[in-house]
């Protein structure tokens, strides 16, 4: 009982009865979720599970059909002032202001959020340095590679020192070097007590990074808890995940008996 109460008060994100339909298709079908504060949280699920839709609704970028979302105790839709100052967002599939250079983009984002100009420039310099973007800081973002875009997006999301960071597929299409840099920044950030919520379908990554996992499939939560709880008896998260989303036992290779090296026909 007391444990549950502690979790209640310490929740970074509290979602209740969240629904979203696009026409006939139900993208998110009634999600209840409590994400603990100060943790590195992975939101995992196959493509089309509703990860992006959920994250968009949690961050106030998409209006849910039903349900409520609280971030650090403030309702996203009724108290946007308190929420928007406390969260950082890196969405997937949305553009940045790409005709600005990396440095200009950070300067713009920081000042737009009301930070003093000198402070913005100081933080931008440090972020560009840490994220290995200093050499490209005067290049237009439109000419950045995927990895560089993710990194500049991460810098923009971190600039105002948010309490909770929401990242949609931050490692998608990112080279290993950039991924390692992003990882290092995020680990340092959570070590200071902040919360990171990120979505991914790469289980090895989630397993190595996260201490808390929520599994999403077909718009519903299939499992939540610490890594060990979700993994259960399975040796890897991948195995547990495949069973949870019901993808076990499909042997796609049986019909491809002609496929193999040697014959060029």
């Amino acid at each position, binding site marked *: 009982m007391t444990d549950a109460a502690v979790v209640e008060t310490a929740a970074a994100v509290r979602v209740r009865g969240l629904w979203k339909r696009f026409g006939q298709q139900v993208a998110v079908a009634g999600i209840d979720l409590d994400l603990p504060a100060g943790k590195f949280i992975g939101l995992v699920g196959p493509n089309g599970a509703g990860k992006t839709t959920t994250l968009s609704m949690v961050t106030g970028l998409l*209006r849910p059909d039903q349900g409520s979302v609280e971030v650090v105790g403030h309702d996203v839709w009724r108290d946007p002032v308190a929420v928007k100052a406390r969260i950082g967002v890196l969405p997937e599939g*949305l553009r940045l202001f790409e005709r*600005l250079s990396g440095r200009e983009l950070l300067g713009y984002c920081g000042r737009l959020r009301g930070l003093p100009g000198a402070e913005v420039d100081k933080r931008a310099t440090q972020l560009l340095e840490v994220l290995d973007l200093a050499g490209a800081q005067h*290049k237009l973002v439109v000419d950045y590679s995927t990895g560089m875009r993710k990194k500049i997006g991460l810098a923009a999301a971190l600039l105002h020192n948010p309490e909770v960071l929401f990242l949609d597929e931050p490692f998608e299409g990112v080279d290993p070097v950039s991924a390692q840099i992003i990882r290092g920044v995020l680990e340092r950030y959570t070590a200071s007590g902040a919360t990171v919520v990120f979505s991914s379908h790469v289980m090895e990554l989630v397993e190595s990074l996260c201490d808390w996992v929520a599994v999403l499939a077909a718009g519903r939560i299939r499992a939540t808890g610490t890594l060990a709880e979700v993994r259960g008896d399975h040796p890897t998260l991948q195995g547990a995940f495949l069973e949870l989303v019901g993808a076990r036992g499909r042997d796609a290779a049986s019909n491809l008996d002609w496929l193999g090296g040697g014959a060029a026909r």
Partner: protein
Amino acid sequence: MTGLTSTVVRLKLSLLRNGLRQSGGRRAAFVASAVVALLFAALQLLGLLALRGHAHADAVALLGTAVLGLGWAVMPLFFPSGDETLDPTRLVMLPLRPRPLVGALLAASLVGIGPLFTLLLLAGCVLSVAHGAAAYVTGVVALALALLVCVALARAVATANVRLLTSRKGRDLAVLSGLVIAVGAQLVNFGAQRLGSAGLGQLAPVADVLRWLPPASAVGAVHSVSEGSYGTATAQLLLSVAALALLVGGWAGSLTRLMTYPDGSTVQAADPGTRERPSSGLGRLLPTGRTGTVMERSLRYIWRDPKTKAAWVTSLAIGLIVPVFNALQGTGSIYFACFAAGMLGIQMYNQFGQDTSAFWLVATAISSPRDAYAELRGRALALLVITLPYATLVTVLTTAMLGDWARLPEVLGLSFALLGAMLATGAWTSARFPYSIPQEGHKNVAPGQAGLAWISIFGGMVAAALVCAPVIALTIWVNVSADGDAWTWLLLPVGAVYGAVVTGTGLRLAAPRTARYLPEILTAVSKG
């Protein structure tokens, strides 16, 4: 080799067919453009046939052929995505040798409306200068040669520039091409008017050069045969053949290079270094805080974003051309000067659509109507930085040309009131009827949002006129009343104050709506 040719031609046909199958609108556009092109070509053909025997028929035919050639040369630069078989890098993974590939691609290039249109026009050119059996025989050869030179020219230019065309700068260039075409049309118009007044004889010296320049030299050969100078004709035909060989050779060369060398655009450029760049003076001139931040970004986008730039240049040009050209021709009215304010005021419309899905950055930084008001005000101020001096300048210029200085204050007042009304309605429709502007291609509205765009722009403009009505009524009243002339100067401050008040009101009405409907606006501007 024939197998490859037929495969590539079939590929071209499939691409054409599948493109049409995608949507009814595209099908309709294709049929319409085909009909228009064929009608135009048929008319041209009749016109050229009517010229037969005319003293300057050869000049017209040569010029026509040269213009066609020029068209084929510049077309791929402006419409790079028009023909997917134009991009040989798509075929790079297939085990093909350049020589058969060149033949196959050349054959595929002959499929489509463009080549058919060209063929008809060339036929007209040849027929207008051909006299006698020998000339007709030469004509058939010339026709094929000229067409092949045109097509090879397009292919050679496209292939030589494919790295540019598939790069970001090339696509930026393509968006601005509409402007080039508009200016070009203006020049052609100007040239045609001069010809109309001075007669076709003016073309003779041009024709003397063109008759030796492929693809026009092929048509020149037909003319030479008609006149009996077979030696000249042979030289002209050989020149065309040489040009064709040269083009195909050059094309094959760049094709081979393209398909065997790595794409330079993915190779990391030499590190430009961490050299400190002085921050642009722009930032220091603008106010601090959100207002200055928003203004700075808006102004940067006018210069750096090709779509925004094209829209601005169009507005600036039309806003200047309409009043000034009308004044030049003596048909002008000083009230046309309001056009500048009206055209530039349009830029306030669909502000968030101009952001595209990057609007999420703005949305995450707006948490109250006050933030939204600061955002909208910053955008309106950025617009005013350019618009206010420009509208004033155009008004003064028009007044100076018409010499009607007494009316300057009232027209300026009207301009300012109109500008204010456009900013106010623009801000409100930006919040109420946002729609997305696709970044690629020439379209300014995403599919399915055309109705929204119409409501936004035309509804907004009607509303702006209504909002402006009190100042218009006042102007009319001052002009018709007996001793009104003594009071026209008053219209300047009245108009300016009215414009400012209306703008402020519009922004204040738009701000709460913007703040309340951020997710809906984001969804609307993220389409396409």
